[in-house]
């Protein structure tokens, strides 16, 4: 059995008296896309922020490849992208990628090669030297994705990455995630588009009010709830909670 690449171990997170995530346990193995699903304010972003090392769990643990998620070593092995991720407006995509590549201590040769490869994969070649402020939403998200995978991390954390994207851009992003899975990456993916999760995820966790309601493959959850779609299954689970 593969060792888990990303683990939340009985993780709780509260803001003041307000619990955002309660006793959450999940793990993602290499070559797997795990979808964290739930409505707004379910605790998805908080859970992903704990794994991205941005927040410390109030109790429990957040681990990446066995390392504390907040450590620099863990961050060096992880790529993080969210739907609200922005870019430095007055820098070009090439300058942005160079900045992050140097933070990740890539050599200049590797950095040039990697930027060229990603520009080809993500169709960035024509926009590499334009200022980010002049890019469209789809172009910006492709640049952000390139930034997140620039150092070829074994773990990808994507927080509602398709939010605000059109159908084509969403499709392109999903394809990219699929190809990363094929390369053995562990991908933790949050969304509130249940249909999208059904298309992409190997396993899903349904989060509601900070708690994990169910976890399994989309088919097993549908079957367990006697539902034809994931949306129907989710509504049944929420009603019974």
């Amino acid at each position, binding site marked *: 059995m593969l060792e888990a690449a990303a683990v939340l171990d009985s993780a709780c997170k509260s803001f003041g008296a307000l619990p955002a995530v309660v006793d959450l346990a999940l793990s993602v193995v290499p070559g797997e896309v795990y979808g964290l699903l739930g409505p707004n304010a379910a605790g998805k972003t908080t859970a992903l922020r704990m794994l991205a090392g941005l927040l410390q769990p109030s109790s429990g643990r957040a681990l990446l490849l066995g390392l504390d998620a907040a450590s620099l070593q863990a*961050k*060096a092995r992880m790529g*993080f992208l969210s739907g609200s*991720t922005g870019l430095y407006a007055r820098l070009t995509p090439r300058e942005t990628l160079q900045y992050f590549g140097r933070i*990740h201590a890539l050599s200049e040769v590797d950095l040039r090669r990697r930027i060229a490869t990603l520009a080809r994969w993500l169709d960035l070649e024509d926009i590499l030297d334009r200022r980010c402020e002049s890019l469209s939403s789809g172009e910006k998200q492709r640049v952000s994705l390139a930034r997140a995978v620039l150092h070829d991390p074994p773990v990808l954390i994507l927080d509602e990455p398709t939010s605000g994207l059109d159908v084509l851009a969403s499709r392109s992003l999903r394809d990219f995630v699929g190809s990363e899975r094929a390369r053995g990456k562990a991908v933790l993916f949050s969304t509130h588009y249940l249909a999208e999760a059904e298309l992409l995820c190997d396993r899903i966790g349904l989060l509601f009010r900070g708690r994990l309601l169910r976890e399994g493959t989309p088919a097993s959850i549908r079957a367990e709830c006697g539902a034809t779609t994931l949306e129907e299954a989710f509504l049944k689970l929420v009603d019974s909670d």
Partner: protein
Amino acid sequence: MDLARRLSHVLLTLGKELRECLRDRRTLAVMILFPLVVYPLLSLLVAQVAVSRDKTRQERPSLVAVTGTGGARDDLAARIRDRPKLFTLVGGGSRADVAAGRLDGLVHFGQARRAEIVYDAGREESREAAERLSDVIASALPEGCAPLFSFEKRSVAPEAGLGGYLLSKALPLLVVLMVLLGAFYPAIDVTAGERERGTLETILSSPIRRFDLLLGKVLAVTVLAALTGLLNLASMSLTLIQVMRLADPGSTLPVPWTRAAAAAGMVLPSAFLFASVFVAVGALARGFKEAQHLLTPVYFLSIAPAIVGAIGEYRLAGLAAWIPCLNVTLLARELLLGHTPWSGALAALASTVTCGCAALAVAAHIYSSERFVDPGPRGRSLDTGRTVGIPKPPTAGQALFLYALAFVLLYFVWLPLQRRNLVLGLLVSEWGGLFGLVVLFALFTRQSLPEVLRIGRPPPRCLAGAALVGLSAWAAVAILSEWLSPVPKEVIEQLRRSLIPSDGSRSLLGTLALVALTPAICEEALFRGPILRGLRTRASPAAAVVLTGLLFGVFHVELSRILPTALLGVLLSLVALESGSIVPAMLAHFLNNASLVGLATFRIDERVAGFGTIASALIFVAAALLTALGLLLVHSGDRHARL
């Protein structure tokens, strides 16, 4: 589309935009309340510094000599001797003595009925001496009579000295203003701008230490602020030279470039200080606009000491050398004048860099907190551990609004009233302007007055502690203030006269009711009531206590009294916060003021003033220990009741 319809669209948009802007309380505060508070405060500051400067000048006699021969010389010397407050006449002297600063002025009676007043135009004291000598000479001549001698003023200042003097009038303040301006927007851009653009999470999830990230940002703002400062200074100097050339093609402004470069050297440390402070404050903001609102008061607070340094007659020595911003203007001025007080210069540099490092440490603390990643929605306050059933405290915004309103009323209404009738003015301003404001606040927020004030029954230990603080803190505070920044004797005398009328028209009890009981109730009601509790919702206990103390100090509107009243305010805030009730703070305030009334009535303070340094130090230590013991007693009271 017809004109009427287009006009209606314009008006509709105007109405909607105004409604939206005016519903933003921060916009309102910056637009209306802030100017109403800042300008009175600045005017008070400038007026008091100017008065103190003129007084210092008047009190210092000019050191002068009269040389030459003849009856006119003896006559002038006699007239000078008759004015001992204005002059100290020495037996002899020369131009070299004036140039070297050993004499402020010299009158030399020469041949052919010619006489000259020798002075150094590059020194303020020497200019003053020349003015005084001119006045004496003019007053000696009966009206309508022609003078026997033709007098001529002659400066011995080297050209560079004069240029340095002229530049010292404007350049030091400009150093601070331009660097502040240069740091303002870059600091917002690298902090709140980063958050608003959505790049903060990206960089924080990268393998870079937060302190390294912060340091990079602070250094970037430092470089930009320093460049802005230097470019502005260079441009202004060149423009000034050009203006003088255009006005009079023959004239040149003798710029002492080495001195100017040395003064401009202060740009870098002050840029570091302002960059650290602004980045620390900017890191608290959720967005660009909020950062502007937070930084604007900091900007004005930084300007105030720089203005004091620029217009006052302070020397770069003692406490002045350690006060940030003030010391920058003083050091720049001294360098331009060609004086280099090394101990003062080192103190100014050390203070500026230390304060910059302290601000950097605060910024690092903010950067490492989770609040930095997620400051939460507007209005979310710190969890102060309150339990269910305890009424909701005022917000920090409400606290500052109440303070601003009280200050505006004090400045524009109550102070003029107090000048006309002290007793009536004091009573109305305390009960109406402070206590009345708290009552109105309670009415508007639909809370009972005891809820707003947190009037609880404190344990006896808290009351004993508060009494000890009230009976001892005044001595510690007074001695400390005397060491750091002595209150002028005239201010003390004026206070004494207003507190205890010499005609005996008010009894001791009446005085106690007016200046001890009334402030203890009314000032505590506002400051240790909604203001302290409101600030506590957004700041740590220590920050809330210090801030409330500072606001309390500034509220006393006398520059020389800000330090002692602010220190007292800090202690009273500690008492209120630790006891969880306003009553012990009221008791401490009453006993503090009553002690001062007792001292003034029986003129004990005059006897104490004659004590030596060692006796003062012993009294200070004893008073400080008693105050600490009092605070300890308050602290050991009911922990659950804390505000």
